[in-house]
């Protein structure tokens, strides 16, 4: 799965103009903390909080056309919903990795 759905991403950029970049920038600034909070919640078995953050970040990343990242959050959300055990370390690795891929690709696109 591509890290960024380039066509959609560029379409959004055209559509929302400069504000889009501000939103993207806000996303990349605020998401690391949210990822940390989510992972801590997973570690502490605070599944409601973890589910809420994963849902929010899935939605936000998806809306920004960051497909792979959104998919990663979706897996966490679905797993929590299904009652499956989610390894916080593994989760952190996966989403951080996808986050960085996305940030890198977005930087290239800008």
């Amino acid at each position: 799965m591509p890290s960024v759905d380039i066509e959609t991403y560029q379409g959004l950029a055209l559509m929302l103009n400069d504000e889009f970049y501000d939103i993207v920038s806000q996303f990349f600034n605020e998401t690391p903390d949210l990822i940390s909070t989510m992972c801590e919640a997973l570690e502490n078995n605070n599944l409601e909080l973890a589910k809420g953050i994963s849902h929010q970040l899935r939605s936000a990343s998806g809306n920004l056309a960051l497909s792979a990242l959104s998919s990663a959050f979706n897996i966490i959300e679905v797993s929590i919903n299904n009652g499956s055990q989610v390894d916080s370390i593994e989760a952190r690795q996966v989403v951080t990795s996808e986050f960085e891929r996305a940030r890198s690709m977005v930087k290239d696109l800008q």
Partner: protein
Amino acid sequence: MSTSTQNPPNDPASNMPKILIIDDDPITLKMVSKVLRDAGYEVSEANNGQSGLTAFQHQPVDIVLLDVMMPVMNGYETCKALRNYSDDESLQILMLTGLDDVESVNKAFEAGASDFITKPLNFPLLAQRVRYAQRSRCMLHELKENQERLENAQKIAKLGYWQCNLTDKGISISKQVANILDTTTDSISSMSDFLSYVHKDDVEYVKKALQSAISNAEPFTLQHRVVFADWSEKFIEQQGEVKTNSENQAVLIVGTMQDITDRHRAEELIHFQKFYDSLTHFPNRRMFDRHIKHALSEAQLNDSIMSLMLFSIDKSEQIVESFGHTGFDMVILNIANILKALLSENLSIYRFDENSFAIIQKDLASTDEGIENANRIRSYVAEPIVISGREIIPTASIGLSYYPYHASKDKDIIRMANLALNESRKQSDTVTNYSSTMTSNSLEQLTMEKSIREAIRKNEFIVHYQPQINVNTGMIAGMEALVRWQHPEHGILSPLQFIPIAEKSGLIIPIGEQVFTQACHTAKTINEQFNLNLRVGINLSTKQLADPDLNLIITEIIAKTGVTPQLVEIEITESAVIDDMDKAISILNNLRDKGFKIAMDDFGTGYSSLSMLQHLPLDTLKIDRAFIKDINDNGENSELARAIIAMAKSLNMHIIAEGAEEQSHYNFLKQQQADEIQGYYFSKPLSEQDFISFVQSHLEKSA
């Protein structure tokens, strides 16, 4: 909580729809806001359900975009809360959800969502989805307005609709039908529920009509009554159609129900006004015309005796003159109330015209029964009634005709009852059965009228003259002009043979004009021939006196004949002036101003009073022959004549005594100092030529 928060859909041209976005994800919130603002919408934001609800309560919007998963209050709860709060049924709530399973979608709709949009959002299409939602809102709003208009129209028209499923006999009714039946929509669920409202006398009719419509699968219209717990009634009209399935079996009835109580009552009122008399509430002449035909047919069918009784109140004109129309109405009403007690299956009563009633009697044993009933009615009616403090006893004249003895057609039986009534009226307070002589008399009258018209055209009316002799000098003082009909077949006809019909038909006016002209011409001729100043007395009838052209006619005759008005004495009778004294005085004064003399003819036989004589502008009083004819040689039976002469003298009137036929009459009148005498003692009425000879001979004798 529910309050009135309904916004009419915004007009896109003038005011963009307001949108509230509720999402806890700031990124999504910003992106959606940006897209919709750019599309021209007025956007507000909330980051959770609770604050979204508060924002909506503060400023209602047209469309809400609502995330499902949010902390504090999730999307479903928020959606429910919004629906509870707002009564704006067209408010569009679009759920934004990444949960695209069927269960979530169902939950969204159950919570009151209008639609849902899945995440990640397709931003290029987002504005279109919102526009679509706005269009839905407009359509819903329009639909609601149309429904309201329709409901209002139905409410105004008192029109509702219903349908009956013929398979399970279930009925559903609209709100307006429930209103008409003063109940609720859920209280009528079966045909028997509905029939419980129908007036018991109409139930069979309604059942049969519906059954017939179902059997024949055809539309129906029926009117019937419904009754309520307080026994009040409404009239309703139902129209409906029967729907069939593919096997042509009736499966459904759809119908409308309209409250036509007001219309029905208006129709009843119109019917009443058309066919009933508003004063007595008896059926009127129009209804009578229908019923008499029916009654005759029935009598023919049953081979029974039927009578038509025409019942007229005597002296109605005098009652009106004395008590006014209101007083007359009271008399009519009083009589109507008496008659009402007589109504039965075989006796029906109608207000025939202003002062008469028609009574149809069916199944009479004999004509005697008819006349007995008539006499009984006549006696009942003669009940004293007090009007304006004065008591009057009404009397009635009644005419009767019978089927099968007199006629079998409505027009004939009415005409015959009328002839009988006319006969009764001549005497007042009597009952008369029709007889065939009445028809012949009536026909004779019609023939006579025709002949009189012809006679006027051919100048067949001639004038005879009866001399009036001065008692003191024995000289001719004047003459009375008396009309005769020189009939081509029957010779000279007396006025008694044609004047009543001429009066009745109005032909007296042209006859009077011819007589006036001839008399003036003769007077002028004789006076010139013998160098005399003979006066000519000419009678004016009631109709002539009331003729608005009288003044003009007389002026023309005077101008045409050249007679001196002072030598023309216009003779009137008491009956000619009794109806309207003021008018009579005005007309007579007018004639007197032109120089004519005025005489009261046939005095003593009518209604004259001393007061009337004082007020009328009279020159001469002509004592009727009735007061003279019985005076004998010894002067017996002369008291009235004596009193009249004394009275006239006291009023300084010239006195002419009519009907002097014997020496004794002459002696008495000379003794009482009457001024002139007219009668067979001196001469009968003479033709113009004979009168001239009489004058000549009289002058020769005097010389």
